[in-house]
Structures are given as C-alpha cells and as structure tokens.
C-alpha cells in the first residue's frame, strides 16, 4: 500500500469516527426539541453529552487538518468549491458550540429559548450538510482542468444529495436516541426508546431510498459493487436486527448497531470514491485522485509516524473519559449546563 492510500484510509477513519461519535450528540441535540418535555429534561439531555461533545467535534477538525496536510488539493478544491455550504456549516457549528455553554448561564426564558434554537439548528444542519457534501462527492462535481470546482446550486443541492443529507440526519437522531436510553433513567429513557421505534420505519426507508438512488445517480455500484453490495447488505441486515433489539430493550446492543450502521454508510462513500477523492462531472481526466492530490512522501511518512503514536493515546484517554462518566445522568446530580 502506498503512503497516499494509507492516508486516504486514515482520513476516512477520522470522518467515520466523527460520524459515529458526533452522530449521537447531534441526535441528542435534536432530542432537546423533540423529546424533552421541560427545561429540566433538556438540561439532563445536554448533560449526557456534556463531557464529550467538544472532543467529538475535534474528530471533524482533525479530519479537516489531515486532509489539508495529506491531500492539499483535495482540501483546496473541496473547501473553495463548496464555499457556501461550508459557511452555513460553520455558522451552525459556532451557534451550537457556544449554545451549550451559554444557555444555562442566565435564568431567563427568552435567553434559554434562543440558545435552544441554536442547539437544534446546530444539531440538524451539520449532519444534513455533511450528507449533502459527501453525496455530491460520489455523484461528481464540475471540476475543471486546474482542479477548481465551479458548482452551481443544483450541482450541490439535488434530489440525491438531499436524500443523502436526510439519511444522515435521521440516522444521527436514531443514534442519539439510543445514546439517551443508555445515559438516562425513568420516563426520559423509555420515551427515547419509543421515539426510536416510531422513527424506525422512516429512517430505514430513507436509507434504503438513498442506496437505490446511489445506484441510479452514481457509478458507485458499477465500479465498486463487489464491495458496496455486501456493505449495504450488512447495513440492511443490521437494521432489520435493530427492531427486535429495540423491542426487547437491549439498549447497549441497539446503540452499537446504530453506530455500526452509521460507520458502514459513511465508509461506503470512501469505498465508492477510491482511488478518487473528488470526481469531475466535466471530464474524468480532471478527477482528483489519492495520487495527484497528495502531499509528498516525506510529509505523509512524518504524519503517519505521528498518527501511529498519537491515535492510540487519544483513543486511550477518550475511552477513559467515557469510563469516568459511565453512570446515567439524572436530575439529582450537579447539572453543569
């Protein structure tokens, strides 16, 4: 395996890690609107992700940084080409990030309601936009011979990418509900499970629709069918398995299953892309590949060494922090937010 291919896998792993982790805290963010019945429940919900959400978001920043370092052309083409969606994504992440910290600082209804909206939008828009952007990648975008992308509105927002965005939002919500069943008690926990059962058909349908549209709108199955069919197949089997797990209150298993489904769906984008990192809808010779978009071997090797040392350490203390905060959150303890 070449260094650039290794880094493609690593960037993929970072995005997958991000979707798995921040996925559930986006879902918890949505639940503050759709599940919580009063302010206290909202605070309980926010506190379930309190110690984690910030570190979860760092996975995205690291993925962006790794992309910049390992594939400068990918980074440059993607971020300048998807300019406006990234502006909106950034605004949403800003609003969300400060909302958690700000909302509990003033005892006023209008104050908390304002920040509640920020949390809601900040939890729906990012997974939606990421779904839109990822789908666009495998569908193909107007990239010219200088690696610059000149995308119009419809290049970015169309039936396929919107379905991709919705799939991520619904999966995140489901995943978040599962996390809530793990981290809360009493009626909140039970209602999260009920909400997941209600969401079950809708989110499953959207994911299946997304897979079907992938076959229609992209070359993914034509080129990578041999890998993608088993991947999606496994995702669908797991999804079918989720229902009895939910019914039988197997919360740990349910959370694991929604997590794996998100991992599979996100991985499918990277599988479909390889060896391209961006596909040109103008001419395939303009495609950005892991080879022509990558940094030099020196940088790639250096970062591989750093990653080999640091990633286990990061995973180690991340797991430790989840262990420290393994107990369920109830309103009886100190609620920071």
């Amino acid at each position, binding site marked *: 395996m070449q260094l650039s291919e290794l880094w493609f896998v690593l960037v993929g792993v970072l995005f997958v890690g991000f979707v798995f982790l921040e996925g559930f805290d986006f879902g918890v963010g949505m639940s503050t609107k759709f599940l919580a019945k*009063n*302010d*206290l429940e909202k605070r309980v919900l926010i506190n379930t992700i*309190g*110690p984690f959400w*910030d*570190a979860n978001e*760092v996975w995205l*920043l*690291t993925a*962006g*940084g*790794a992309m*910049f*370092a*390992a*594939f*400068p*052309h990918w*980074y*440059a083409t*993607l*971020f*300048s080409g998807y*300019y*406006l969606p*990234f*502006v909106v994504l*950034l*605004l949403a992440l*800003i*609003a969300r*990030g*400060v909302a958690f*910290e*700000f909302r509990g600082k*003033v*005892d006023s209804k209008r104050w908390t309601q304002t920040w509640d909206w920020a949390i809601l939008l900040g939890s729906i828009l990012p997974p939606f936009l990421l779904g839109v952007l990822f789908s666009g990648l495998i569908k193909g975008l107007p990239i010219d011979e200088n*690696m*610059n992308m000149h995308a119009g509105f419809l290049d970015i927002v169309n039936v396929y990418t919107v379905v991709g965005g919705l799939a991520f939002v619904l999966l995140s919500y489901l995943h978040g509900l599962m996390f809530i069943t793990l981290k809360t008690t*009493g009626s909140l926990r039970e209602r999260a499970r009920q909400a997941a059962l209600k969401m079950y058909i809708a989110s499953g349908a959207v994911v299946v629709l997304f897979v079907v549209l992938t076959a229609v709108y992209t070359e993914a199955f034509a080129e990578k069918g041999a890998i993608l069919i088993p991947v999606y197949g496994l995702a669908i089997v797991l999804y079918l398995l989720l229902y009895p797990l939910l019914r039988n209150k197997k919360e740990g298993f349910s959370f694991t299953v929604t997590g794996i489904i998100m991992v599979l769906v996100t991985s499918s984008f990277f599988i479909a892309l390889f060896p391209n990192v961006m596909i040109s809808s103008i001419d395939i010779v303009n495609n950005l590949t892991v080879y022509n978009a990558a*940094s*030099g071997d*020196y*940088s790639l090797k250096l*970062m591989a060494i*750093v*990653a080999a040392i*640091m*990633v286990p350490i990061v995973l180690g*203390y991340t797991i430790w*922090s989840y262990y*420290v*905060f393994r107990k369920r959150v109830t*309103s*009886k*303890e*100190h*609620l*920071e937010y």
Partner: protein
Amino acid sequence: MEELMLARIQFASTTLFHFIFVPLSIGLAFIIAIMQSMYVIKKQEIYKKMTKFWGIFFLINFAVGVVTGIIQEFQFGMNWSDYSRFVGDVFGPPLAIEALLAFFVESTFIGLWVFGWDKLPKKLHLACIWIVSIGTMLSALWILAANSFMQNPVGYTINNGRAEMNDIVAVLTNEKLWVAFPHTIFGAFTTAAFLVIGVSAWNLLKKREIEFFKRSMTISLIVGLVSGLGIAFSGHSQAAYLIDAQPMKMAAAEGLWEDSEDPAPWTLFANIDVENKESTARIEIPYMLSYLAYGEFSGKIEGMNTLQEKYEKKYGEGDYIPPVKTTFWSFRVMVAAGGLIILLSALGLFLTWRKKIEKSTRYLKWLVPAIFLPYIANSAGWIMSEIGRQPWVVNGLMLTADGVSPNVSSGQILFSLISFSLIYTLLGIVMVYLFIRVIKQGPNEKPKEDISASDPFNAGGLQDAVK
C-alpha cells in the same frame, strides 16, 4: 482584485477576533491550574472557590475561542485555495498534528475537569487542568510553527511548483518560532493576569470579598510581572530575528526609508509620508535601535528604499513595501501597552508587599481599564507581524495576491464576511454581557433553583419540575 481585498479583510477580522479569546484561554488555564494546585496543597476552601469562579470565565471564553478557531482552519481552503495547494505539504502537517496532539487533549480533559469534580480523586482532577493548560500551550506551539513558516520559510524544497517539506526538524527549530512562541505565551499569561487583576480591583474598590480578591490579585500580579518581563525580553529577540530574516518588516516598523546612521536611533514618533517616501518630525532615542537589533550600541539598519531595490533585483518588478504606517504604529502601540503592563504589575506587587493594596484607590481604579491593555498589545502585535509581511503570504515565496481562491466570487466572500461578522459581533456582545453578569454575581454562586428535591421522572415529579 476585489476578491483578494475581501478575502484579506475576512482573514484579518476573523483572525484578530479569534485572537481575542485564545490568549485568555491559555493564560486562564494556567492561572486556574495554579489556584487549584494551591487548593490541593494548602487544602483551603478559598482556593477551590477561586478555581471555580475564575473557571467560569475560562469556560465561557474557551467556548468562543474554539468555535472561532474552526473558521480559522477551514478558511484556508475556502478563501485561499491556491495558497493551500502551494504550501499544504508544509503548512498542513502542523495543523493536523496540533489537532492530534493538542485539540483532543484540551477538549477531552476540559470535559473531565468540568464534570469530574466529584468523580475523580483530587490529584487526578488537578492533573486534568494542568493537562489542559499544557494542551493550550502545545496548540499555540504548532500554530506558531505553521505561522513561522509563512514568516520565515524553512525545511522545504520546491517540487512540481509547490513547497514540499523535507525537514521537520528545521520547521520545528525555525528561529522565528522560538522567538514568537515565548512572546505569544507570555502575552497570553498577561492577558489572563490582567483580567483577574482588573476584576479583583473592581471588587476591592467595592469592598466585596476582600480576602478572596486580594489573593486572586496577588497570584495574578506575580504572573503578570514575570510574564511582562518575559514579553520584553522575548520581544527583544524578535527584533534581533527580524533584522536577519525580515529586514523589510523591521524597516517599515521603524518608518526607515533610507539606511540608518550608525549607531541607529530608535524612533519614538514620526510623521510618515508614504507618498514622498520620507518620515519627518522624528523623535528619536539614540543608540536604541542598534541595541534592539544587534544587542550592542552600534550597527546600521537598512532602509526600505535599499531593500526595495534589492528585492526587485531578486524577485522582479513589484512593490515590496508593506503598509508602513500600520506597521509603524501598531509596533508602537504594542510596545507602549507592554510597558504599561510591566509598570502596573510591578507597582501592584510593591503595594501588595507594603500591605497597602486595598487602600490604594487610585491605583485600583487604573487597573479596571487596564484589563484591555494586553488585548491592545496582542492585537497590535499580530497586526504588525502579519501586515509587516505583506505583500508576501509566504515571505519571499508566494505573494498574498497569488494565494487567493480563483473560483470563489466576491459575492460569496462578501456573504461569508457579513455573516461571520454578524455572528462574531453577537458573540462578542453576549460574552461581555455574561462576563459582567458573572462579575456582578461574585464568587458566592447562588445555587440554581432547588429542583433536585423531587425526581421529575416519577409520576407527579414532572409537574413539580415544571413549576
């Protein structure tokens, strides 16, 4: 060309705004870590109260620092895609390593610190805030490594029309990095120190919680004075480095058009006439510039006209003179603010030592607006450093004008500029509002409405909670 201007305005404004929060985060993490250490060692509750009270400022500030930092990372790709393509190989790795080495540490251990008060053993919990503090400094180190490459490119070769890294040791031992890093860190320490000092002074004037604020103040005065002196010394080495690596910036910072005499005087004030390329009405301190630049009272400094000629020979036609007035005045503002910081902290420590501090009303009154001094110094320092580098984005390698995204329209940049400005303004207002609120509330935090008495998840409990 309009795109270039807008992209530059956006970069300048988002960076300066981000840098309002970063120094305070770095500094407060350090000061809080000291306070909590004293709590663990001396076992006095007052230090725990201090840790928690100043911790609120830290957390509010940190949140804004983080979210404004996300824009920093992404706007290189959005607005400066050609720059990213050209230097991504050298510039990207420090950013990626920062995330792996520092960002994860900070965000995870802040979570552990905030939520771990009752869940972790005391010493382990103390270790968390120290790890956060070290993490914030590591962040600064890697970001400055990337920035130092822009100021003084090292450790690369040009391959296939772009800069490729060939020596990480050179990147990490970049002379610029090791003059900028201590300067920035000490600057960050004074920023936090002066916030604590100023807020404490206000409370001492109001005669609230005297013991609490006196102790907070003493700790911060020590941090303030030590780092104030650190700023001065590291600033001196910055100047010595500038003469070597970025003589044009130095000349602009001095408003020096023609070569200086030998020994060179330091210009205190001057009327800079960019059109006629001359600086009139100069007030000078003899020998001083030679000393700043070379550490001895002799040696002359090249002026901008000489350097311009040299650069034209080396890089071809073009205007290589940065905006002189901005560079000149931001330098002086920075130095003046830095000087005041040292004076005020020295005076404060003297008064504390004479046990007169809480009675020195006039001095305490100065300290409240003095909260802004480090902010002025930090911003002016960055303005000098970055404006003084123009017209280069990477000194001697790439012009700023060549780094901008070719496929992004001025309308798009304007849209993002307006929306970021709006949200930043809002954040600024909210933060000041929250800070003032916390200051007014004081360290005796009132417990939140007592909701813990009833269990809202039992039947009937919900109604109680809603009430």
